[in-house]
C-alpha cells in the first residue's frame, strides 16, 4: 500500500490554539467603538467621520512607513493602528480642521509606538500621546472648535462660542449653566450627559454608547471590569471636591478613558492587584487635575502618568500561586 509522504512539522505542545488572534481582538475593539462614532455623526454631523478617517490615515501611514523602514511586513491590517486612530479622533473637538488629526495620529504613532519597537513594546497609550502632541501643537484649535449638539440635524450644527461644560466647571455654577447648550427642552442635565446630547469631544459625549461598546468587550471577554471600575471608583473618591459632582462624573473622557484607554493591554498591568492600583491611580489623578489643576480635562494625562507605573506595578503586585509553598524534602 502506497502512503503519501507528508511534510511533517515539529514543535513542542500544545499543537492547537484557541484561535482568537491579536488582530481578531483589535478588530473586535474597533467594532465596539462603532456605537460612539455613530452617535457622534448623529449629533455633530458628517465632519466627525472626516476627523476619524483623518486620524486613522495618519496613524496607518506612520505605521506602514515604519514597517517599510524596518523591512518587515506591514502591520497596518492587524487593527491595532486603526484602533489608535479611532481613539485619538474620539478625544478631539468635533470642529477641528480635518488635517490636524492626520498630523496628530502620525506623530503619536511615530513617537509613542514605532520608536519603541511597535505593537507590544510601547510604554504610553499611543492615542493619548497623539492627543498630548496635538494639545501642544494646536492649542487653540484643540480647545475652541466645539460644536453645539443637535440630534438628527446632520450637517446643520453650529459652532459653539465659549467653553464646554467641563471647561466651565471651575468657573462656578453660573458658568456651567451657560455652557450647557443644545440640551433638548425639559431634559435633565444628568440624562442629557448620559445620552450624549451635550457639547464635547467626538467620541466621548455619550456615556451610554461607550458603555454599550464596553459591554460588548466584556461579553467577548476582551476586557475585564477591574480597571474601568477602579478608574471610575478613583474618580468618584475625588468628586466631593468638584463644584458639580454629577457633571464631573459624566463628562469629559472619563468613561471613554476608563473602558477603552486605561484597559489597553500593552500599557496596563496584567495582574489583578496591579490593575486595581493602576485604575484607582488614574481616577484619583483625573480628579486632582480637574479639581485643582489648571486644566479642565484630566483623564488623558492621568492615564499617561499611570502608564509609566505599569512595569513597576507588575513587579510589585504578582499573581498568587494556587498551591502553598512546598516543604523542602
Amino acid at each position, binding site marked *: 500500500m502506497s502512503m503519501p509522504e507528508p511534510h511533517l512539522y515539529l514543535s*513542542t505542545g500544545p*499543537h492547537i490554539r484557541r484561535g482568537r488572534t491579536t488582530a481578531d481582538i483589535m478588530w473586535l475593539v474597533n467594532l465596539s467603538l462603532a456605537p460612539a462614532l455613530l452617535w457622534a455623526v448623529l449629533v455633530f454631523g458628517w465632519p466627525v467621520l472626516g476627523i476619524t478617517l483623518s486620524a486613522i490615515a495618519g496613524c496607518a501611514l506612520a505605521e506602514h512607513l515604519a514597517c517599510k523602514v524596518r523591512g518587515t511586513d506591514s502591520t497596518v491590517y492587524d487593527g491595532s493602528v486603526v484602533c489608535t486612530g479611532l481613539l485619538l479622533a474620539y478625544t478631539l473637538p468635533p470642529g477641528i480642521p480635518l488635517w490636524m488629526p492626520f498630523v496628530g495620529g502620525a506623530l503619536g504613532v511615530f513617537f509613542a509606538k514605532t520608536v519603541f519597537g511597535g505593537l507590544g513594546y510601547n510604554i504610553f497609550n499611543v492615542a493619548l500621546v497623539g492627543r498630548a502632541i496635538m494639545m501642544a501643537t494646536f492649542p487653540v484649535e484643540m480647545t475652541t472648535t466645539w460644536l453645539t449638539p443637535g440630534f438628527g440635524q446632520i450637517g446643520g450644527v453650529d459652532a459653539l462660542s465659549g467653553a464646554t461644560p467641563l471647561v466651565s466647571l471651575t468657573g462656578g455654577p453660573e458658568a456651567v449653566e451657560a455652557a450647557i447648550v443644545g440640551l433638548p427642552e425639559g431634559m435633565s442635565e444628568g440624562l442629557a450627559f448620559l445620552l450624549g446630547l451635550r457639547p464635547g469631544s467626538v467620541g466621548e459625549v455619550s456615556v451610554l454608547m461607550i458603555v454599550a461598546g464596553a459591554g460588548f468587550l466584556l461579553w467577548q471577554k476582551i476586557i475585564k471590569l477591574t480597571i474601568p471600575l477602579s478608574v471610575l471608583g478613583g474618580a468618584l473618591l475625588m468628586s466631593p471636591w468638584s463644584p458639580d459632582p454629577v457633571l464631573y462624573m459624566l463628562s469629559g473622557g472619563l468613561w471613554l478613558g476608563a473602558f477603552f484607554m486605561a484597559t489597553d493591554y500593552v500599557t496596563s498591568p496584567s495582574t489583578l492587584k496591579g490593575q486595581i492600583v493602576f485604575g484607582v491611580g488614574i481616577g484619583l489623578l483625573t480628579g486632582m487635575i480637574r479639581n485643582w489643576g489648571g486644566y479642565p480635562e484630566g483623564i488623558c494625562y492621568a492615564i499617561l502618568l499611570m502608564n509609566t507605573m505599569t512595569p513597576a506595578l507588575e513587579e510589585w503586585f504578582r499573581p*498568587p500561586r*494556587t498551591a502553598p509553598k512546598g516543604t523542602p*524534602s
Partner: protein
Amino acid sequence: MLRLFASHHGEPTFARGGIHPDEHKELSADHAIEPFVPRSVTVPVSQSLGAPSVPVVKKGDRVVRGQLIASDEAGGVPVHAPVSGIVKSVDRGIHPVLVLDMAITIEAREQEDEPTFQEQPGWETLPREELLERIRVAGVVGLGGATFPTYRKLMLPDDAEVDTLIINGSECEPYLTCDYRLMLEQAEAVVLGAWLIAKIIGVPRCLIGIEDNKADAGAAMTAAIERLALDRSDHPVAMEVVVTQTKYPQGSEKQLIQALTGRLVPQRGLPMQVGIVVQNVATAFACLEAVRNRKPVIERVVTVSGRGIHEPKNLRVPVGTMIQPIIEACGGFDDEVVKVLAGGPMMGRALADLNAPVTKGTSGLLFLTRAETNLDRYQPCIGCGECLDVCPLGLEPNKVSQYVEVGRALETEEFGPLECFECGCCSYSCPSNRPLVQFMQVAKAAYRHEAAKQRTHA
C-alpha cells in the same frame, strides 16, 4: 475576581485557570476497542520515566509472548515480548519521545507454548508484598502517559499518611478516547484494579474522577462498583465515581486532587503529602492483569484519530507496534496531514518520522490537518494577561517568555518555570501565539544547565 458562574451543574473542578478546547472526541468515541496484531514489533527498552532497561535477549532468540526481554536490574522497568516470534535485532531505533533508543525487534510467529494468562485463583488474598512484586515484574507504568513505574508510586514510605486513592478517568486531552472506551468496556476490571491498588496502599476510600463529557462511562463504572460491592470485601473500600466539569487539565494529578478533595498539593510537592495517591484507569486495569492473570504490560489501547486519518479507531496494539501498519489498519491518511502526534494535542509529542513504535506511554496517535493544528507565527506579547488567567498553578508565562527572549532565562525562577508541568493552557490561549511552554522549557533547561555547572565546579 468575583466568580459569578463558578460552577455549572454544581460539578466540582479545580479552582483556578484551565481551558475548554474543542473536544473532537466524537471522531473515535463510538468505536469499540479492536485488537490489532502486527507482523513485527520494535520494542524500545526505555518504557518508563528514568533509566532504560537492559536487553536480556539477542538476535536469533526465540521468544514467547510475555517473556522477559529487558530487565530492570539497572533501573527502568521489566520489558516483555509483546508477541511471540524471533528476535531480529537489538539495535538503535526511533523512540517517539527520546528520539533514539535501543530497541528489540521481534518478527511475529505463533508459538505453541504461548501463555494464555488465565486468572490465577486466590489472587485476591495475596499479601501486599506479593501484590507489589507482581506489579513490578509485570512492568506496569503510569499508562496515562507519564510512564512512572507504578510499583514505586505504590511503595509508600512508612511515615506516609495516605487516606484516599484517586483513579483518574478524566482523559482531558482532546481527541483521546482510549480511557473512555476502557471504562465503558472493562468497567469491572478497572474497578477491581482500583480496589487492588487501594488494598496495596491500605486506604479505605477510592474516588474515581470522570469528566461530565463521559457521563456514560461514569454510569458504567458506578454500576460496576455496585455489582462488585467491594465495600464488603476482605479489604473494604468505599468507592465512588465523582463526575467533574469538563475542563482541561482536569486529568493533571494536582488539579484532579483539588477538584475531588479540595486539597492542594504544595508547590513542587507530591500527592502523598496531602494523603493521596493517583492512578490512571488504564494503569488500574494493568495492575489487575498483572496480579490476577500474571500478565505483563505487553499491549495498550491507542486512540488513532485526527481529521487526517481515514478511519479513526481505538486499537489494542502490542507495545512496539510500528506506526505505519497502524495507519494501514486505519485506512491510511490524507495528504492534508501536517502533524503526527504521539499523545494528545496539548501535551503530545510531534513525530518527525513515522518509522516509530508505540510505547507503554502512547495513549494516542493523532493525524492533524493544517486546519486543526497551529502552524502560525508568533508575535510580541501584548500584555493581555490571558496566560495568567488560564494557568492552573498561578505562574507567569508572560514574564518567563519576555525574560527568555532577551537571554535572561536565569532570572525567571520567581515566575515559576520550575513548577510548570507544561499543560499548555498558556500557549493555547495566547492571542499572539507565543510558544510559552517552549519558553518555560528553555528556562528549565537553563537552570538544569546551571545546576550541572555548579556541581562540576564544586
